[in-house]
């Protein structure tokens, strides 16, 4: 029978032996990383993609041992919903500042980024953007804002360049362009830029057709495309209208040489293919995308699909990438200090990333080497067709006539109901 004293001795020894080493070993520190995304409101879908992308990246980073230069410190996310509203976006930045985050990721939309970047500058918090494409964001002289992805202007210039290269290589006599755009910021500014740039590749905008983003029918607009005898149709609009335009063109059998968009609402979106099926085929879109030749990309996409049951979408891919850019800078900063992190971010020089470009920031925090790619929907998958260093498929141009496509799809899949 053990006495009380013996018991105490044994207990103390046991505690020292078992619990002791755990107490002595340094606890891995936590680095608080802020995130503001529109999880509700008009941008909820994209904002939640962003949140998931960052979550995935942070889980990977922590599982692989955290930030090694800081003794394996883990990243801890503080995620706030800015409700797609600028005033709420301001208050999320204030709360992140109060909480002492080392950096802020987000906020997907340009209208929100105008506000969050300004707050980040005020509080001297490094702010790494994921999507937010408006050129002006990195033209305001901010030193704490970093954007590794291409701007609206870069995407438009590059897409026009790709289109020029493609038509030249394939010897396609495309001349007449019709732009059908929504009358808000996104559609109109893209249309303006394209109208200015298209003559440089020998194309001419013969008609611009503005429409309201919420229009229930676009039959008349599509009739105008037919009347204009367009070689190339450029829809510059959000998802619902973009989808409606394609469906109406198919219904009215309006054939054109190519349908191209720049950051198109329904361009490079797997949900569009899910919604309209074969009608999506052959659509071209210049947009954010991954490098299809990167060895890691397939496993990243599979991991995302496993975690969230969602197909690939560039919104989460860019958010995912942003967390890795932050991780790299934290490694080099060697401490969770905002100033050191800012300086480290400014010296970022990443080559081998899943995005198809190196990541280097200029004095304005913009990655001038970023680029959009040109994708085409081919038999239900989105394939990169230009530029050639990353292309995974040859472009199919000119687009086959609707009549022929419908017949083909009917004969090839007799079981499918075409409605």
């Amino acid at each position, binding site marked *: 029978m053990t006495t009380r004293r013996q018991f105490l001795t044994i207990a103390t020894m046991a505690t020292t032996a078992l619990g002791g080493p755990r107490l002595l070993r340094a606890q891995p520190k936590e680095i608080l990383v802020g995130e503001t995304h529109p999880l509700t409101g008009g941008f909820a879908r994209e904002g939640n993609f962003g949140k998931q992308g960052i979550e995935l990246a942070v889980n990977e980073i922590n599982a692989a041992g955290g930030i090694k230069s800081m003794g394996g410190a883990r990243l801890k996310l503080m995620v706030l919903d800015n409700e797609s509203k*600028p005033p709420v976006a301001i208050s999320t930045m*204030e*709360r992140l500042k*109060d909480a002492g985050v080392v950096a802020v990721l987000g906020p997907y939309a340009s*209208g929100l980024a105008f506000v969050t970047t300004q707050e980040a500058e005020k*509080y001297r918090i490094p702010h790494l953007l994921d999507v937010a494409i*408006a050129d002006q964001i990195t033209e305001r002289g901010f030193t704490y804002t970093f954007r590794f992805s291409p701007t609206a202007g870069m995407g438009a210039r590059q897409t026009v360049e790709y289109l020029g290269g493609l038509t030249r290589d394939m010897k396609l006599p495309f001349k007449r362009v019709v732009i059908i755009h929504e009358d808000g910021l996104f559609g109109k*500014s893209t249309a303006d830029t394209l109208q200015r740039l298209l003559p440089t590749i020998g194309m001419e905008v013969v008609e611009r057709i503005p429409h309201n983003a919420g229009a229930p029918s676009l039959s008349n607009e599509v009739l105008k495309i037919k009347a204009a005898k367009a070689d190339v149709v450029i829809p510059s609009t959000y998802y619902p209208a973009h989808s409606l335009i394609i469906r109406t063109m198919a219904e009215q059998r309006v054939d054109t040489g190519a349908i191209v968009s720049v950051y198109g609402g329904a361009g490079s979106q797997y949900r569009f293919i899910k919604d309209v099926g074969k009608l999506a085929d052959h659509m071209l879109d210049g947009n954010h995308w991954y490098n299809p030749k990167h060895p890691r990309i397939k496993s990243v996409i599979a991991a995302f699909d496993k975690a969230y049951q969602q197909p690939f979408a560039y919104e989460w891919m860019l958010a995912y990438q942003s967390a890795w850019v932050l991780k790299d800078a934290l490694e080099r900063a060697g401490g969770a200090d905002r100033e050191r992190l800012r300086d480290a971010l400014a010296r970022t020089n990443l080559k081998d990333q899943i995005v198809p470009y190196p990541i280097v920031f200029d004095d304005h925090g913009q990655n001038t080497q970023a680029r959009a790619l040109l994708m085409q929907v081919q038999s239900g998958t989105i394939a990169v067709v230009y530029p050639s260093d990353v292309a995974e498929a040859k472009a199919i141009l000119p687009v086959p006539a609707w009549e022929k496509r419908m017949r083909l799809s009917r004969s090839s899949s007799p079981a499918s109901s075409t409605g």
Partner: protein
Amino acid sequence: MLRKAGLAALLGAAVAAPAVIRSEYLIGTLILIYFFAFVGQGWNVLGGYAGQFSFGHALFFGIGAYTSSLAFIKWGVSPWLGMWLGAAVAVAVSVVTGHLSFRYGLRGAYFALVMLAFAEIFRVAATNWEWVGASFGLLVPLRGNAPMLFQFAVKRWFYYVILAMLLMATAGVARLQRSRLGYEMVAVRENEAAAAALGIDAYRVKLIAMALSAGITALGGTFYAQYFSYVDPTIGFGSANSIEILLRPIIGGAGTIWGPLLGSVVLGVLGEITRGFVKAYAGLHLVLYGVILMVAVVFLPHGVMGLWRRH
């Protein structure tokens, strides 16, 4: 006496708040509460006192924000001056829209809708007019800490500016309430025909209410543009903004001096609490917020101030 002491204590607390509060988030939340109380007070003059429910006050808000920002961007005019320019333009526009509405006797829902339409016209026009930034809107160029240009590096100064604006608007409305014009407005609101029979020129009274209301709301627009340094057609003239503006005074108590501030405090605190408590499910706090709002509107038809008065 007790009332005065209470008010003085509240004012003292408001002035001292930034010195005590270390949290940027709390200061920011207070700024937004004061801001919505201020534009709500603008709406209150027309909607509360004169009884003309406008669903398009974003019209004047947008004019204020756009005018001061454009004057600054295009001609380098300080927004301190620009805000009065914006108020002047808003007053001019309000007189035109007011004349068109009141001259043809539009009341109730019809007046509300016509104001909504006017705001929409301005939104569409601003969306398509290159000179005012079209659909992109306007980014106010940042000049660092420039108090003369209504730009502050520290949030505290925005706090004092909007606090001062709110105090002036509230004091102005308090005076209005006791003035002849104020009584005439209430008379028109309660029974326009009876007021006219007593010799009150209802058209004139409503037009003045409209002009005052527009001017105050436009000043709020300039504050918004300076604080956020970004305004676009939807932020400025959008119908969501019109609703934001009228929500606070209606919740707090339309046609009362303290209604807009009370409504703004209630909604502001409610919004932040629901946001803080239900983090797990994105959007749930908005549902909760909506439910509380509906309950408030159904059970407190005279706003929170009405609750007060019943006792």
